[in-house]
């Protein structure tokens, strides 16, 4: 497996949706290619950080205000 082939498969590797034989090739490649191993680990970490520290969160007071405004208009038939 080449680095280009590895990158092309990166999403499937991260999402754990590669076939068992491909997975073995992927692991073999990562074992000998430190760069691809870094790319894999740091890309996975990127996703993990964005998932656990959600940006653009709606503060509760604003949420309640917008929610009330939406529901008031729905009740009036918009």
């Amino acid at each position, binding site marked *: 497996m080449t680095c280009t082939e590895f*990158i092309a498969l*990166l*999403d499937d590797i*991260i999402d754990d949706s590669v076939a068992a034989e491909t997975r073995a090739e992927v692991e073999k490649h990562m074992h000998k290619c430190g*760069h691809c191993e*870094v*790319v894999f*680990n*740091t*890309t996975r*970490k*990127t*996703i993990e*950080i*964005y*998932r656990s*520290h*959600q*940006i*653009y*969160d*709606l503060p509760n007071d*604003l*949420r309640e205000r*917008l*929610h009330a*405004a*939406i*529901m008031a*208009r*729905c*009740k009036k038939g*918009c």
Partner: protein
Amino acid sequence: MTTIQSIAGQDEQHPDVALVQRVRDGDVSAYDTLVRKYERQIFRIAQHITQNREDAEDVMQDAFLKAYEKLEQFQGNSKFYTWLVRIAVNESLMRLRKRRTGKMVSIDEDLETEEGTVPRDLADWAPDPEQNYTQSELGQILEKTIKGLPPGFKVVFELRDVQGLSTEDTAEALGLSIPAVKSRLLRARLQLRERLSRYFHKKPGSRQAGPKVARAEL
């Protein structure tokens, strides 16, 4: 066994279906439940596209009101949430076009660029690098980092990786093909990784610190 499970899975009704039916029958409180369930997610999508807090607030309200008005048109062959996201994305793009005085903005804009498909920063990160920053600093870094990505990349990343939608549901919500979603997701992930690297490298002098080759500009 697998077959029986998959058949059972297909028959299993999504909880939104019953709520949508109750709204159609005139029960506004069921819509209240749907709004509560999805308002945060819709706000985030709107903020990703518009990059403006007031616009995102307006889009969120307009999207829920439009969905309420058009509920009769909702066929039920897609999920309520993917249908709602589609409305919110369209509202967000309209708002963005207005702000940019009519300039065409699309989720499907030409993105045939090689940027981000070839990783350049190959130095390793510190273990748990986010812990070197306060919550507020980290929030700023994450916002600044994702801001520069094209709208189509940001929304695909948000839906697939942050909100956990399937590739199929993301494609349906955005009106994109499955290969288009996959291509945007790979590039979004790689570009974010590349941009975050400058903040998360191992500190010089730490064990196994790699050479710093971070790009100068975000």
